């Protein structure tokens, strides 16, 4: 959902142009609750979706030839999981059909399987960050987890890569932070293009 409301310009009667909202598509706006809104806004789901897909297709995945599915888990950001689902419908990554798994933060802790990519949403939110860290730690203890763990800006214990949003002079950008040791332990390397997007 990325479109806004429009006001109708249809003539009801000559000269009568009252403001009458015509809903095209509408985003939810949480006026009263805590503020995960920018963190997980639908438009940024689209932006992250594009970067994740591109990273998935450009990166070398060791041992991928022994797998039958390319599994992407999206934790705590259903819009992003939905966007990826639409984007990847009928497409393959690394020659494999793609599964998109949408999880709540607490569900991750109980997840038994491994993934190829694991993306954590809402990580910049202080309250959410703690929950994500706990769930990720519990999930990683269940076995040899090789998934590339990414976050949307927050530093979550056990992460490999952070895709951080930032304002720049000419607009907006995503920059990249990596945990080098974690990456080496999984024999993972970011593609050069992504390494060139390191955060200042």
């Amino acid at each position: 959902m990325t479109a806004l409301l429009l006001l109708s310009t249809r003539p009801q009667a000559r000269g009568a142009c009252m403001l009458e909202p015509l809903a095209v598509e509408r985003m939810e706006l949480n006026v009263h609750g805590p503020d995960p809104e920018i963190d997980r806004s639908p438009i940024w789901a689209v932006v992250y979706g594009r970067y994740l897909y591109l990273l998935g297709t450009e990166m070398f995945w060791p041992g991928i030839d022994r797998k039958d599915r390319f599994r992407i888990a999206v934790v705590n950001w259903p819009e992003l999981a939905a966007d990826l689902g639409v984007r990847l419908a009928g497409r393959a990554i690394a020659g494999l059909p793609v599964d998109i798994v949408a999880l709540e933060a607490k569900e991750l802790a109980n997840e038994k399987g491994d993934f190829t990519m694991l993306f954590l949403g809402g990580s910049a939110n202080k309250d959410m960050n703690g929950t994500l860290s706990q769930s990720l730690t519990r999930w990683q203890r269940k076995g040899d987890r090789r998934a590339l763990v990414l976050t949307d800006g927050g530093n979550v214990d056990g992460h490999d890569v952070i895709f951080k949003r930032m304002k720049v002079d000419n607009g907006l950008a995503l920059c990249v932070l990596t945990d080098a040791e974690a990456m080496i332990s999984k024999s993972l390397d970011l593609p050069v293009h992504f390494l060139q997007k390191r955060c200042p």
Partner: protein
Amino acid sequence: MPVMTASLHEGVRCPTIQLLLAVLSFSLCSGVSLAQGPITRSAIELAQQGELEQAEYRIVSALATEEAEQSMTWYVQAYILKERFIQEGRLPDSPLREQAIASALQCIDRDSDRALGKWYEPLLGYLGDTYLEDARMAIGSMTPEIEGPTIALFNRYVEVQSALDPDWDRQPEWVLLLQQMGEAAMFEAKEREKSGAGPWFKLGVEHYRSAALEEHDRARSMYNLAVHTYNQGVREFKAAEDNLDAIDAALNAAAAHWQHAADLLEQTISFDDRNSVAYEALAIVSKALLNQDRLEWCKAHLKELGGG
């Protein structure tokens, strides 16, 4: 003559027989300006029988005599021509419409005390309105390369309305037409999301900007332009090629659109600081732009306005 006035304005549903009876009975008990000569009366009788072409020939004959001095004669010609215009399908390029208007204007020239005003005003108003309808219909033929006849048709509508009332304010209809042209272009932009949206978007911006220059309904013009501008940013980002440089460039291009949308919404709110939809939209755009402070500001206003 309320029945005749209403039916004339509605054009197609005009009951000719009622009109003619009205003309005859009214003229019998009125002064010089409502007088009818024998040839004009004969034309009326032909029209009454549905013989519009014969009636037209007859009224032309009347206008070749001293009956041409009577405003009623010109009105009857205008009426017959207007009826023929309708009978022939109300075609946009029919010369009958302009001929009818010319006759009505001749009638007005000779009707200094406006005794026939209740009759020719709805007739002329109807003919003028057909230009407005045609202008709106012509929006569908507009392309980024070809403007089409919309503006010319609207200008003719304005001329006719101004002939009826020199103080008539064209702004509301003009703004509405510009908004409709803008909306039509933006619809095309949306339909061509992945290829060719750009020229249509530019055309839509042009029309909405023109509309926003006018005071009338400015908040709507600016709000809708803001919404379309935001959506264009989303479209362009979605359409970017799958490589990192293209995506980064598209994100920056989208951010420029979103910033412009935010500016327009700020202006919309400055016109009406209780416009909750504008706050909602600005909140959404602020999320895209990572403007947390502005988002909080919008939320505070929405809460105050009872939204959310």
